């Protein structure tokens, strides 16, 4: 029995995002400091071995109402809160900020609405100050996560290929490429194939042949990524009796020589005891900076966005 540990997300920003953010701040938001909806993405296709840290990416399309996703690229809804001054950015109550975001997730867990919209368990919020004159962007990502009761542990951790047959793995990768790419679903194992059904069927399926399927951004052996975390809390709250013995397929699908491979996915079986969970657990999730400290990051875009610098460079 081992404690459940998760590999955190690391934020990744395409320069096109800064261009769009500048536009939104100047043309739409103005001095309004209210959170603005954005969309990010993550992939579950990193090569096995943990060389890459799981990434939540925001790109040029983050402010679109909907964005293109595909079989190995999943969308995550989030918000960006742009402060008007560096002082306001600094003095913002960080604990209160993430607490508020986590409370939204907890509300969906406690009223049971998450079962039909499990994607909402997975969110991110960015606190930001944009120094538009200097093309400097101060930002701090949070990936709100609720603490899982410490009595819930990992009973067993295997690789997908030890649990699924070759036929089932093939059927799975075929289904992935044509699928609706939900982050959360149920994977029903049939004799020589698999069937993917919505997570909301959980109470109605045979759990001896069904795994809870979670798109997993991590690539480390043994440890799943952030997407599993709030789901376990939600399950502990809503289906406490199902949790011990419940199997999760932390789905990883890499591509090699044109083939989609999923045999290195993790199959995690939970064990331990599930206590009564009726109040919001502790909240964590601020991203650490490059030095491993609790602090924001800075993107200095002067050399690539400042028209003066660009003009100098183009001579």
């Amino acid at each position, binding site marked *: 029995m081992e404690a459940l540990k998760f590999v*955190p997300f690391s934020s990744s920003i395409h320069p*096109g995002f800064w261009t769009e953010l500048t536009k939104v701040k100047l043309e739409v938001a103005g001095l309004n400091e209210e959170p603005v909806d954005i969309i990010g993405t993550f992939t579950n296709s990193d090569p096995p071995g*943990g060389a890459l840290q799981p990434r939540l990416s925001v790109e040029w399309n983050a402010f679109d109402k909907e964005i293109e996703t595909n079989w190995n690229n999943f969308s995550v809804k989030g918000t960006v809160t742009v402060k008007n001054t560096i002082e306001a950015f600094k003095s913002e109550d960080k604990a209160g900020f993430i607490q508020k975001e986590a409370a939204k997730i907890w509300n969906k867990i406690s009223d049971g609405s998450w079962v039909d919209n499990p994607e909402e368990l997975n969110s991110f919020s960015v606190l930001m100050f944009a120094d538009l004159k200097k093309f400097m962007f101060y930002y701090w990502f949070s990936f709100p996560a609720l603490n899982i009761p410490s009595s819930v542990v990992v009973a067993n951790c295997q690789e997908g290929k030890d649990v699924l047959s070759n036929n089932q793995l093939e059927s799975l990768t075929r289904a992935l490429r044509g699928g609706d790419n939900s982050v959360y679903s149920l994977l029903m194992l049939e004799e020589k194939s698999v069937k993917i059904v919505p997570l909301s069927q959980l109470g109605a399926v045979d759990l001896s042949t069904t795994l809870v399927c979670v798109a997993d951004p991590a690539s480390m052996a*043994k440890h799943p990524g952030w997407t599993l975390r709030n789901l376990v809390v939600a399950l502990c709250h809503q289906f406490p009796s199902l949790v011990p013995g419940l199997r999760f397929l932390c789905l990883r699908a890499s*591509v090699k020589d044109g083939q989609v491979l999923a045999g290195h996915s993790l199959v995690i079986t939970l064990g331990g005891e599930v206590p009564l969970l009726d109040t919001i657990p502790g909240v*964590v999730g601020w991203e650490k*900076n490059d030095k491993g400290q609790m602090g924001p990051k800075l993107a200095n875009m002067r050399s690539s*966005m400042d028209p003066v610098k660009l003009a100098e460079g183009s001579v």
Partner: protein
Amino acid sequence: KVAEFLTPVLKESKFQETGVITPEEFIAAGDHLVHHCPSWQWASGSSDCVREYLPPDKQFLITRNVPCYKRCRQMEYSGELEKVLDSEDPEGGWVDTHHFQETDPTSLANIVKDMVLEEPVGEPEQSDSEAEEAVDMEDFVESGMLEEDTAAVETVQEEQGVSGGEILSTRTYDLNITYDKFYQTPRLWLFGYSESRTALSVDQMYEDFSADHANKTITMETHPHLPGPPQASVHPCKHASTMKKLLDQIAEGGGELGVHQYLIIFLKFVQAIIPTIEYDFTQNFSL
């Protein structure tokens, strides 16, 4: 820009004669690539930059998160792996330095593990020396106020063997292939992220382009479908002639190359320029 605006869209197929392709042929080759290489996808790009000669949902091709474990100078040069694709023109010929190599990400990761020890990851560049811009990010670090997370795997500076962690830092690239209306060929764009997930500067990206090509073949230009600062791109001025030479070589051998295979071949020959960026391409195509 002006030249592109004034160039009419290529209508008739001239692929076999000159190695250029029409937008329709680009779409066919793109569909073929997406079908055979699942890591590639069509993208629509910014709605402000839609080119009307391409379908709105198939404006360009994208593959994200391509790992780049090491810099070009760290590549061990091995003549045995090399194949000159155009032997008659050593000056401008494409050299495929990876031609006979099986890439194995785990062994590469092991090499990188060793390299990290002797060569710590560089500090993010601070090119702006102006004093007013020197912001002390340490001032922003919060202590004691935020709950410690005991369920997070420490990914920074975790020593190998401790709690089984083995996170390494690796650059990644997003690659895009657009249709270049002026040169009437595909065009490759590269966008890199550092080990700490910040955008790579031009100079940092040059470390991942082969020395033979870095300064003459790669240029910084505005992406036709995306907002943001200029991005690195493999200049397409030689693409058509390279493709034509390959067509001729294949014809001499009695073979024939279909236009739908264009991008698969294209990805193979640009690999000479970015030998350490490990994008997936399928079909083992022998020339």
